[in-house]
């Protein structure tokens, strides 16, 4: 009983703390650094993919310039930025690659690494992950 109270108190203070240190009113797009921030995240992720033996083979025939442009567009639109994603649906674009849970984990791991390196706040990281995680059902095992 004491323990639960203690935990509830800790949660309360954390909530309070975050209230005081004002949750940024700005959109996720701004929290990610706007156009420049998203360009660095996209480039960072491409570098991670390139060096990741677990998943790089999926991109053997990919037009990387096109992929970079579309990924940046998509991250921009998703995060509330002033862009329109012009690529295919996630389902269409990933069909035939049989992308596994391990592939998905590897890519998310790479993205997290890049966001950490770029000192994106943990809150903004989690907001972006919350948007990307549900795409799993459209992307995996197709």
């Amino acid at each position, binding site marked *: 009983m004491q323990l639960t109270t*203690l935990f509830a108190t800790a949660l309360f203070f*954390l909530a309070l*703390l975050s209230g005081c240190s004002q949750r940024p009113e700005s959109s996720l797009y701004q929290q990610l650094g706007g156009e420049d921030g998203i360009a660095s995240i996209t480039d960072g992720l491409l570098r991670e993919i390139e060096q990741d033996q677990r998943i790089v083979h999926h991109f053997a025939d990919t037009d990387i310039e096109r992929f970079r442009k579309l990924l940046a567009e998509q991250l921009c639109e998703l995060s509330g930025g002033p862009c329109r994603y012009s690529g295919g649906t996630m389902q269409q674009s990933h069909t035939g690659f049989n992308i596994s*849970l*391990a592939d998905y984990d*590897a890519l*998310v*791991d790479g993205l997290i690494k890049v966001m950490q390196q770029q000192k994106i706040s943990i809150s903004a990281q989690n907001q972006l992950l919350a948007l990307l995680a*549900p795409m799993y059902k459209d992307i995996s095992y197709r």
Partner: protein
Amino acid sequence: MILRLILLLGCLLTSMASLAGSKIIATGGASTIEGSAGGGIVPWAVINGYGSSGEWAATAFATQVGVDDFTLNVLGASISYDNNWEWSLARQTFKLDNLGGELRQDIFGLKYHIAGELLYTALPQFSLGLQYKKHRDFALPSAVGARDDTGLDLYLAASKMLFDQVAGRNVLLNATLRATKANQTGLLGFGNADNNDYQLVFEGSAVLLLNYNLALGVEFKQKPNQLAFANEQHWRDIFAAWFINKQLSLVAGYADLGSIAGFNSQQGYYVSIEGAW
């Protein structure tokens, strides 16, 4: 013993290159006192270690729980495959600090991930598990009324990571339904003279992930109360977990184990170290 294992773990860790699997850090959970992946006392639907689809993983852990009149030491290990199968072994030694003597129990665990993905599906991750428990010092449990020295626990666990919940942090929720005949999780044997029925109990955990490496959690474990000689109560704990990297994690907590064998209000520390490969 514990110290030696810790040293051994340390040596292994430093000598082995990073063979960790693809799962995201902390998503393998910690090792429970029963050896299954979870928190400290509640098994979760997550699979031990960092093996994602098609990957193998292994873990080894040492845990000590020290409450007023008892000390529980646990050593265990697990292997897992495909983020779907988990096999675990745990050896518990429950020291009766005041009465003298000890009660030992071995637990073989099997867990199968049946649906959902912790991070990626709206459906929580669901797993079915069983724990076969074998008591190795049954004279005392028998003397206080336990029927069997072996028992089989069955459980269904659901776990879900919710992103960006409290101050932008992620929250992991877990609920577990367990069918058991165990008295004090088996440390006092299984069933009693009059009753050999399964009891259905609920267990739950809530964990706040401060960042990728640090988490704060609270757990509750409902327990049956079947032995006439002494009252048995529900367990609870709070803990902080530090996932230093995918190879090494530490958990420290405070546990309230209620009344055990007539000794009331058993509270104290919980510490655990886990190595994963």
